[in-house]
């Protein structure tokens, strides 16, 4: 018994070149990915001088510094001494209506995901479980659509939205994304694994095809939907390109990534501290979501990759 345990331990501790090499590569990759995050977090904690001179290490000295803007307003120097962290994060919220942007982000991403599900589930169900003429052709079209990059169709989409007068509305942010080919594909692949008997049983129980979708397929597809939801929310929460195109004037409709622009290219130069603080605030909801749903997320990726 003890010998066996010792054996496993020895096995676990034994040096393996292959494993070590794998880990080295993974660590290197992780570093490359994490470095920008490190910079972002670090800059959001430091005073402007420390950022410019690249001193102070990760969190800076946290010594109070003089807020020039405050001086311009004609206040005493003593009143204008601020702590870098407090300054960066409070400016992020004061200078731009960040809460409003976050709310916009929530409205847009949730609406997009909701409508995507409403569209994708019936499509995926039909492609996976109904027999009709031309089904394979339609599915081929779906696969083909997966290959079209967003940027290729951005201009026609913009013109269409402009013609119907929808630019600078929530609708412009939401409508182009409501039909997710990826969602249809992912859900179709998942529905292929649902046994036909279950659907037949639902039919015998008196369900219509739509009832089958919402009462049987939706609940069984929760893991796949979670995965798809994470893809969708991450993509649209972080999207800078599309909101930048259709939201031209009305700042009330800015999504969080657009909010970052508030700190960019001002006459008095870039204000990196508050900008990075904003970036931190924007990514936090996603990171929290990811940590909460980490297992599901990985399941979802394997789900889409394996089948």
């Amino acid at each position, binding site marked *: 018994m003890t010998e066996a345990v010792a054996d496993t331990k020895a096995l676990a501790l034994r040096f393996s070149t292959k494993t070590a090499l794998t880990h080295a590569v993974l660590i290197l990759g992780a570093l490359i990915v994490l470095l920008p995050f490190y910079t972002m977090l670090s800059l959001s904690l430091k005073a402007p001088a420390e950022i410019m001179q690249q001193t102070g290490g990760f969190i800076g000295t946290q010594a109070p510094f003089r807020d020039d803007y405050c001086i311009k307003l004609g206040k005493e120097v003593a009143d204008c001494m601020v702590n870098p962290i407090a300054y960066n994060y409070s400016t992020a919220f004061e200078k731009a209506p960040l809460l409003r942007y976050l709310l916009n982000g929530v409205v847009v991403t949730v609406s997009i995901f909701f409508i995507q599900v409403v569209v994708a589930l019936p499509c995926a169900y039909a492609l996976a479980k109904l027999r009709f003429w031309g089904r394979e052709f339609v599915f081929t079209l779906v696969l083909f659509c997966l290959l079209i990059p967003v940027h290729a169709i951005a201009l026609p989409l913009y013109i269409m939205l402009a013609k119907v007068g929808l630019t600078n509305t929530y609708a412009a942010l939401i409508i182009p994304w409501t039909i997710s080919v990826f969602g249809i594909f992912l859900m179709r692949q998942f529905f292929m694994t649902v*046994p036909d*008997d*279950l659907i*037949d*049983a*639902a*039919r*015998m*129980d*008196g*369900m*219509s095809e739509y*009832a089958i979708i919402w*009462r*049987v397929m939706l*609940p*069984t597809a*929760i893991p796949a939907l979670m995965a798809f939801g994470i893809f969708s929310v991450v993509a649209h929460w972080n999207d800078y390109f599309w909101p930048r195109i259709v939201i031209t004037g009305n700042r009330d409709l800015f999504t969080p990534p657009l909010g970052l622009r508030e700190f960019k290219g001002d006459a008095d130069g870039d204000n990196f501290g508050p900008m990075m603080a904003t970036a931190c605030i924007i990514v936090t909801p996603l990171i929290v979501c990811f940590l909460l749903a980490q297992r599901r997320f990985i399941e979802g990726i394997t789900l889409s990759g394996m089948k």
Partner: protein
Amino acid sequence: MSQISLSGIHKSFGSTEVLKGVSLDIEAGEFVTLVGPSGCGKSTLLRILAGLDSADTGDVRIQAQSVTQTRAADRNLAMVFQSYALYPHLSVAENMMTPLKMRELGWAGRLPIVGPLVARRACRDIHARVEAVAETLKITPLLARKPGQLSGGQRQRVALGRAMVRDPVAFLMDEPLSNLDAALRVHMRAELSELHRRLNATFVYVTHDQAEALTMSDRMAVMMQGEILQVGPPDEIYHNPASLAVARFIGSPAINVLPGEKLADGRVVLLGQRLFNVQSGQPRALFIGLRPEHLHLAAEGRFEGMISHRENLGSDLFLHLTLKEMDNPVVIRAHPDQARNVARGHNVRFDLDPAKVLFFEADGQRVTLDGARQLEVAQ
């Protein structure tokens, strides 16, 4: 008027003809089994009856109404699937409630939380019926569980319960016992028969297991290659098969088929031994079917074989005998006491019960030889 009537059902998948004009009438309250080897089209026939597949041609009638164009949901049939097909996300009680909810509640009543408030009486009624059925099937303690937490036998009961909660025209069962272990299967056979008697409902049961068909059904339809070969009570099918294919499929161990011959002078000869005389006529080759229980070991028997295999079932002992005249072994049932002294490799003599001999034409059709019984001579 029969409860369910299938007439001239044809079905092809691509170029494969799965059903070749099948007709079957099922009376109210009958337990009818469709039995046949895998791929004979029995499940397809059941699915066409259920409305889950559509026939290429042919007519399905339920209670004298043509339902050929009716959706499965509107045919008022209940089905139990081989895989049970329980909704994995719903508890046992909710699974059993689903057919009632879908049929008896409006969309408002089906809403998750509001529903029971809107249609309070209907919901209470549904609960009561589910509990009554659960009581009958002895699954009350399981009502709150999810299907994933149940054993195969329990799932099977829940699937039955889901079919039983409403009052369908007929219960359709597609190999419902084939996922259970052997002991449970035998137990459930008795229980299903009991259930059929109690409900007095029409059962259409599909199986590839001839034992299930023989033990449970009022009538059984033997299907092969898309055709019904014979319909009748199990006893009739077993003792009086219409063709060699039916005789071979029904019965375990399978019937022994030996080459025989009718000579011009009316003698019927098996392995060189005269069985009996019939009216003289055209000489012809015959297949002679002998069930293992109609053969017996006899010291003075006319046939001899070498024991190549012993199959001991406790109550019975089946001996596989190799005859020098034949390639296939002959299986014979022996009483365990009688066969205690015989071992593999021994030569034994055996004889047959002439009254039980079945004759088949070379093409497999059953024939009765005129006067076979009358002209029988003492051995």
